[in-house]
């Protein structure tokens, strides 16, 4: 059984937008048969937490020098470009 992919979801407070994004990612990837585990965190915490994650998805700017690939997007909040971002996430997890 494949290990679920691990995605770190960042936003400003770790309670608002990251909640929506994490839930949306889980639902959309589940539809595509991809198991993910998400964790929410503040943008300021990413540097210390990123190790061991396959991908970071954020709604707020992050430092440039991270180990893990980052997708910065508002698509899960605004709906704009949502399909494209989901494809981007799927590709990044391959």
């Amino acid at each position: 059984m494949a290990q679920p992919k691990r995605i770190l979801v960042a936003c400003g407070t770790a309670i608002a937008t990251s909640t929506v994004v994490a839930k949306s990612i889980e639902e959309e990837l589940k539809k595509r048969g991809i198991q993910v585990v998400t964790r929410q965190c503040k943008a300021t915490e990413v540097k210390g937490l990123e190790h061991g994650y396959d991908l970071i998805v954020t709604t707020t700017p992050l430092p440039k020098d991270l180990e893990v690939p980052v997708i910065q997007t508002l698509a899960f909040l605004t709906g704009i470009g949502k399909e494209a971002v989901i494809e981007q996430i799927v590709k990044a997890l391959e």
Partner: protein
Amino acid sequence: MPSQKIIELLVPSAVCIQLVADDSNQVIETLAGRLFKAGFVHESFAKAALERESQMPTGLPLGGKYNAAIPHTDIEHVIKPALALATLQKPVNFQNMIEPETAVPVQLVIVMALEQAKTQVEMLQEIAGVLQDADIIEKLMNAREIPRVFEAFS
């Protein structure tokens, strides 16, 4: 589909229709003040929300006629979860959440007083749903009485 949680949590005395404001600070202060008066947040909430907005802005370009902002701050300033809402008579600049150096002219502001993340998932998903629904936003912007605002979410 009705936005049940939004309807439950939106505080009528914290709904401002066609508010005239010069800047984002004024909008946040007004809505935070209403939530404080109504007993949902501590006095510290307003300042915290302003500070948060200046460091981690919440402006959201929606790609249509109107844009939104969703100011919020840490849970320690919240007594009970609640929402405040303002439609603005003229657009006010908020900074873009994903590109903070870019301004977004905003007409719809929802201040969120949140407690723990997990207990608000549905409400937050409803808000995202509303932001993606041009019809609901149009109804909110056209509302001139508070009951119309609640109807827009039904």
